[in-house]
């Protein structure tokens, strides 16, 4: 394979990896604060996509699409935090996990009942080449992801918010003792996580030109793998892991195809990481 092919594959992987990163970031943030695996996060992602799609079909306005989709995702995410996760604090982690899976199933099926089972097209990003090998959707996805993470970085590292999250993640009781208002801060974390998932949903719908009720199923478990590779609860490690996974997946599929079961290999790698490097692949270099 020549360099231009490799470059094309890398760009493709970066776009896919960006989506992984956007989705998994929220998952790991929530895990860090509440110690729950928020599977319904993938449902929030689908809600964001449907919200954006609805706004787009009704108004045709691209800005409105993103705002509506993101807002809807934030509302659903914050509601789940308030109604579901907060009251279950302190219960064994299995309890919110099972409930969260139930919520994920319910959200996906509710979307089917409301909007029908068929795939809907979401043609906001036609696959036009911009600058070979870059295409418009790739540039849009990678560009908005970089922009969003820059924003998140600035907000969390330049304000008290990031510091408080770190404090809560490290020691919940201590954080409460020094007067950090836990509910407010976890709610803000859910808002941020859900907003990013909503954007990810819109981007993935536009990238592949289709949204559908069960679109959260793949990210639901794939994001888990990303979160582990990044070191559970380490947001920036997760971002790097997500992007890396996207690129590796793209290049490996091109060279090896599906001669080996891709998911089987990925999860085998994940088990090995858990066994021998439970702090995540990148923990020593990148700290959240």
């Amino acid at each position, binding site marked *: *394979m020549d360099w231009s092919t490799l470059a094309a594959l890398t760009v493709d992987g970066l776009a896919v990896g960006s989506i992984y990163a956007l989705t998994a970031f929220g998952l790991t943030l929530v895990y860090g604060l509440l110690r729950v695996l928020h599977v319904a996060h993938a449902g929030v992602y689908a809600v964001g996509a449907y919200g954006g799609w609805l706004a787009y079909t009704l108004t045709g306005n691209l800005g409105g699409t993103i705002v509506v989709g993101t807002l809807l995702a934030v509302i659903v995410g914050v509601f789940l935090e308030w109604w579901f996760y907060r009251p279950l604090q302190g219960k064994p982690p299995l309890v919110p996990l099972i409930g969260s899976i139930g919520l994920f199933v319910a959200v996906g099926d509710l979307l089917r009942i409301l909007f029908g*089972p068929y*795939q809907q097209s979401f043609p906001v990003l036609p*696959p036009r080449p911009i600058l070979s090998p870059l295409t418009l959707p790739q540039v849009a996805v990678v560009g908005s992801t970089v922009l969003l993470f820059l924003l998140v970085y600035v907000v969390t590292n330049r304000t008290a918010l990031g510091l408080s999250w770190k404090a809560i993640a490290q020691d919940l009781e201590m954080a409460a003792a020094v007067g950090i208002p836990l509910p407010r801060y976890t709610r803000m974390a859910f808002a941020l996580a859900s907003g990013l998932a909503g954007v990810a949903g819109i981007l993935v719908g536009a990238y592949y030109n*289709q949204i559908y009720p069960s679109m959260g199923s793949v990210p639901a478990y794939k994001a888990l793998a990303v979160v582990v590779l990044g070191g559970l609860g380490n947001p920036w490690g997760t971002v790097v892991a997500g992007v890396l996974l996207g690129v590796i997946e793209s*290049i490996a599929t091109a060279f090896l195809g599906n001669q080996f079961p*891709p998911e089987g290999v990925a999860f085998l790698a994940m088990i090995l990481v858990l066994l021998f490097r439970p702090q995540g692949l990148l923990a020593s270099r990148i700290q959240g």
Partner: protein
Amino acid sequence: MRKVLALFTLVLALALGSLGTAGFSQMPPIKVGVLAPLSGFAAADGKSVLTGIQIAAEEINAKGGILGRRVELVTYDDQADPKQAVSFTRRLIELERVAFIIGGSYSGASLAASPVANEAGVLFMAAYAVHPDITRAKPFAFRMGLLGPVQGRVGAQLVKDLKLKRVAILTIQNDFGRALEAGFREHAKKVGLEVVFAEAYPPGNQNFTPLLTRLRGVAPDAIYASGYYAEAANLVRQARALGLRVPIIGQEGYDSPKFIELAGPAAEGVLLTTTLDRDSRNPEVQGFLKKYRERAGIPADMVAASGFSALKVMALSVEKANRLDSEAVRWALRSLTNLESAVGHIYYFTEDGDPVKTATVQVVRNGEFRRFRNYTDLSLLKP
């Protein structure tokens, strides 16, 4: 459980009472069981097939029903899950006492359901599932769709007839894709095609760019790619974006207006082997296309047409047998010949219960499926 059932019966009785008897005699309606994946991953096909079956039932009832009795559908959602399919099949047979069952689900669920129905001596008609074992050695199990391997052969013949030689295969990794691939390869060898690339991808896959990038490197004359319309739309869109201009040949999985909507301009020129011929002059086909569009608001797909035909053919067989007895209806069905259905001209049903029928190649032109050519060569179409 019993309470729930009692409640269910009550609701059903009330609902039926309010509907009235619309001019039918005092004879009880004929109950027809329907299994369809109405929720879960296969929900889109479930909705299509159910709509097709409902249109058939309305059409039959408007013409006086079967044997003068109204057709009443009893529908259960099997979620394309074999476990649900087994329980619901028994339920349809024993509690609902249906006359026969239309299997509107995928191969897995149908494979689990058909032996149960067969054992109980109740006719089972799989609308579009492709797995050969659904009907094999089961006298009461029949099929409406084209068998996977047969359709694969038609695809290879098409490549040959387009005077192309070097072909790349992309297969969806499930029983549907594997059956198609097997048929394609077998016939490709026979007619001297050269398979220069073969890969599989998991169902639900969205990113085809990596595989297509390597495929581009071997410069094939044509791509034979199996999959359902959601995968196919991405496959075709990304192939065109990568500058692959060779013919892409799909199969009935592509056969949905949603394919054209999702793939956009990239769908133009894509060929697919299927059984619903939009340019057929046959009133059965045109009548169905019109009714479906009126009812669903979108153009029909192959799955809906198969469900529609499955019920129509079963109704015809019952009329021909002139009674509901499974054994008699089975023989009536087996003796049907040269039948025009919404999914092709059926020459006859084989001993296994599979149809020998015409296949059509449709091409996407100006955002619509149009006939490219039809295949009527029996040596190609026999299972």
